[in-house]
């Protein structure tokens, strides 16, 4: 197997995890920046529609580095799609695959299930809940909590912040509860 074929395979956790962790010192060393992504959503509000809300009245240009970082993440996703994409379907745990098959979700060609996340599913209640309501909660919840997985779980815990530990535990608790008890009801919807 040559290098390109090898690098196209999904990377194991012990390669990806430490590389993600290194983002913390890299951003600190190249510019005194604390790692995080969700603040971008706030900067976009501050830039486009501050509407006299005090939470959005700050000089967002001082945080423009964060928007460059987010733009980079998008470009990284594009470059991977162009040059490094894994040609094989996503390997899914058999128990999950069986459960999802019960909801008619069997396509694992992409990183997201194509039956659930596509433009035409926006015209179904199920798609609207997952794509629109889910996104709303990601934006509302991360800002209410003061950070997301990057800011709290990785940057905050790296800096031994108790509020970040509390927030991370709540992210996981919310996800556990929702994925196991509520999401199945949404996935069962046929409308």
């Amino acid at each position, binding site marked *: 197997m040559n290098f390109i074929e090898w690098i196209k395979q999904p990377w194991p956790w012990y390669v990806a995890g430490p590389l993600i962790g290194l983002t913390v010192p890299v951003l600190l060393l190249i510019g005194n920046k604390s790692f995080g992504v969700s603040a971008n959503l706030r900067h976009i509000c501050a830039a486009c529609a501050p509407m006299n809300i005090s939470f959005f009245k700050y000089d967002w240009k001082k945080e*423009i580095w964060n928007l460059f970082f987010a733009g980079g*993440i998008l470009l990284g996703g594009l470059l991977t799609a162009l040059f490094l994409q894994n040609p094989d379907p996503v390997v899914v745990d058999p128990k999950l695959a069986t459960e999802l098959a019960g909801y008619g979700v069997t396509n694992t060609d992409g990183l997201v299930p194509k039956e659930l996340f596509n433009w035409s599913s926006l015209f179904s209640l199920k798609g609207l809940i997952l794509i629109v309501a889910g996104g709303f909660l990601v934006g509302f919840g991360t800002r209410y*909590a003061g950070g997301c997985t990057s800011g709290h779980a990785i940057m905050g815990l790296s800096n031994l912040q108790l509020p970040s530990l509390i927030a991370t535990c709540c992210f996981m608790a919310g996800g556990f509860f929702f994925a196991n008890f509520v999401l199945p009801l949404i996935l069962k919807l046929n409308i």
Partner: protein
Amino acid sequence: MDRATNTFPEGVRRDKTTDLNTDFEIRSQHSMCVNRSEIDKPILSNIKFLFAGILFGIILVKSEVISWFRIQEMFRLQSFHMYGIIGSAIAVGMISVFIIKKLRLKTIDGEPIQFDNKKFNKGQIYGGLLFGFGWAMTGACPGPLFALIGNGATVIIVTLFSAIIGTWVYGFLRDKLPH
């Protein structure tokens, strides 16, 4: 801390201390991720963060962190993958921050590296739980939203737009919410 005692390389223009203090306080409100640099540099100098983002985006895609399936496995305890990634990322981050603090390392511009201590508020609980729900639904946190769009899952543009609306609604309701 007294910002006036910080030393900066010659020729670097500093912001007016008065402006910075109030603006910084607003910027860092409910945010882990802030720019602590007080050096005013041209906008194009941010290109280095674009490159850092590209590398981060590639890692997110290649490790399948952005996959809805991996997130569902995580919340159903069906796979170690995500726990290994988040755990080892925190371990590396923690050791790095420890070294930076211990050796009092400076940035490549010669600025002292600064950290913020955050105070607890109830938002971390309520907001954390709500984000957990959204994470389970979309299978993505904010970083992966950007990576997924770039990777070709174009409908996630709607999810990102909705997340921006969610952030705006939070800002609008902030004074009325328990913190």
